[in-house]
């Protein structure tokens, strides 16, 4: 038997790949291209409309310069509302993180080994998460009335689901060695969580929470439009009344706020995590 025959016999998949291995890639690529073209056709996409719209967009951007809140009093009103938006995001995100902590532990296979608990908590978190922040805002406005409180509740509810899932996944991916080390000393289940699991996953969780704080500042703008407090309502109003100088001022303020939050959270993460980078999400 020659060397080639022996290798062919031992590794059949390498010398004679199956049809799936050979044509899987091109078939998938073709499928994606087809669905893309089909989707564009179905939604009435036409390059002509984009070209026509470009002029409109140009006019709008032209009107945005210079960004101008009109008066100092208006500027203060906008900045105040922006502060409210940031506060909504902050309260909603961190309250959600605190409430999601026990749920995350409950939904983690390596903490609660019970299949039924695991299934129920996972599906529960998924269904909360499946409803978008904007829809929660519409619901909460009907429950507690218009204003920032509804906004905080909207972000809180939708993020409990997200954090619960992210936390439970971080916990499940935690290093098993410290857990065994802690357990081998005669430690109980609470020591196991406090010392075996949390020190390793806390930086990951913190990174996720800070990232969501920044992202929720943008979400809080949107839910403001439906009346859940903050800058969103002003933004929608100025767009409606075609006051594009005001719109530009508001948009730039939001961008600045998000940039500041991003910078602060980056430093905070670095300070707590130390030198090692921890991936978010």
């Amino acid at each position, binding site marked *: 038997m020659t060397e080639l025959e022996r290798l062919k016999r031992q590794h059949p998949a390498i010398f004679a790949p199956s049809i799936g291995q050979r044509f899987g890639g091109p078939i998938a690529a073709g499928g994606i291209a087809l669905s893309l073209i089909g989707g564009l056709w179905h939604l009435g996409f036409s390059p002509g409309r984009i070209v026509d719209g470009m002029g409109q967009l140009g006019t709008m951007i032209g009107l945005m310069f210079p960004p101008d809140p009109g008066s100092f009093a208006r500027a203060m009103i906008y900045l105040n509302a922006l502060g409210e938006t940031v506060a909504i995001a902050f309260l909603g995100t961190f309250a959600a993180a605190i409430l999601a902590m026990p749920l995350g532990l409950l939904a983690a296979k390596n903490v609660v080994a019970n299949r039924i608990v695991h299934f129920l908590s996972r599906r529960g978190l998924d269904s909360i998460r499946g409803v978008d922040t904007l829809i929660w805002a519409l619901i909460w406005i009907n429950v507690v009335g218009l204003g920032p409180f509804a906004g905080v509740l909207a972000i809180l509810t939708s993020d409990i689901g997200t954090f619960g899932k992210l936390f439970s996944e971080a916990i499940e991916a935690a*290093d098993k*060695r*410290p857990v*065994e*080390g*802690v*357990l*081998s*000393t*005669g*430690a*109980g289940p*609470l*020591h196991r969580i*406090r*010392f*075996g699991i949390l*020190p*390793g996953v*806390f*930086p990951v969780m913190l990174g996720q929470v800070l990232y969501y704080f920044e992202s929720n500042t943008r979400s809080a703008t949107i839910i403001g439009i439906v009346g859940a407090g903050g800058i969103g309502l002003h933004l929608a109003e100025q767009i409606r009344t075609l006051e594009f100088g005001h719109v530009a001022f508001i948009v730039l303020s939001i961008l600045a706020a998000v940039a500041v939050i991003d910078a602060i959270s980056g430093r905070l993460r670095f300070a707590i995590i*130390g030198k090692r980078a921890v991936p978010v999400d």
Partner: protein
Amino acid sequence: MLEISGLTKRFGTHAAVNAVSLSVPAGQFVGVIGRSGAGKSTLLRLINRLEEPSGGSIRFGDQEISTLSGRALRAWRARCAMVFQQFNLVGRLDVLNNVLLGRSFVVPTARALLKLWSVDDRAAALSALEQLDIGLLAAQRAETLSGGQQQRVAIARALLQEPDIILADEPIASLDPRNSRVVMDALRQINRELGITVLCNMHDLDVAKAYCDRLVGMAQGRVVFDGLPEALTEDEARELYGLEAADVLDMTPETLQPVAMAAEGRRFAGRRAAAH
């Protein structure tokens, strides 16, 4: 006196530990030797009950260990400290608190969770660290230490448990020769001075012979040698390590190795020539 009889652990149909019987008198330094996969690690983990036995019994004094649960199991684990190949410290916790985790069974849970250790416990932790020459590292995060230092922290943690037995699972397999000697010396000193029984897994036969009062050889989950280090002849050692190699590869070593190695040598030689 630790008394193991007919102890078995099956993973699926594979018996990692197969009807092992062993009796270890208090104060002995026992080396468990054999190739990786021989079941040494599982044996030690069964004794600490990190693995659940599939059958057989483990007795310590009058107590049956294999059926303990809840608080009684925690009490047993506290008496039977474990040192791991990968140290198994809490990396992001400082060294002192890692050592103090050795007190987690005796200190009330609420105090332990808040790290409110008593002055006496702190002093005990520091003096354990000092005995191991790493007292100055007490405030550092465990993950910043070298492997040899981390293993000494793990030994200090074990000491704080005030154990009757220390189970060391390949404690030097991740260390360089100098650190290996420091760690083995520490274990032997603890054994001689405090009278703590030590069961230590190793695959290095020379180290095992140098440190242990008694050697237990394992292959395929069974005890195949049990006696004084001097009693282990070279033939027996070769059998202990060679027997399994043949079995794993499912061929006799004589026919497999020379052919494969010759072929390998030719190929690499050819590639080197082609590269130049």
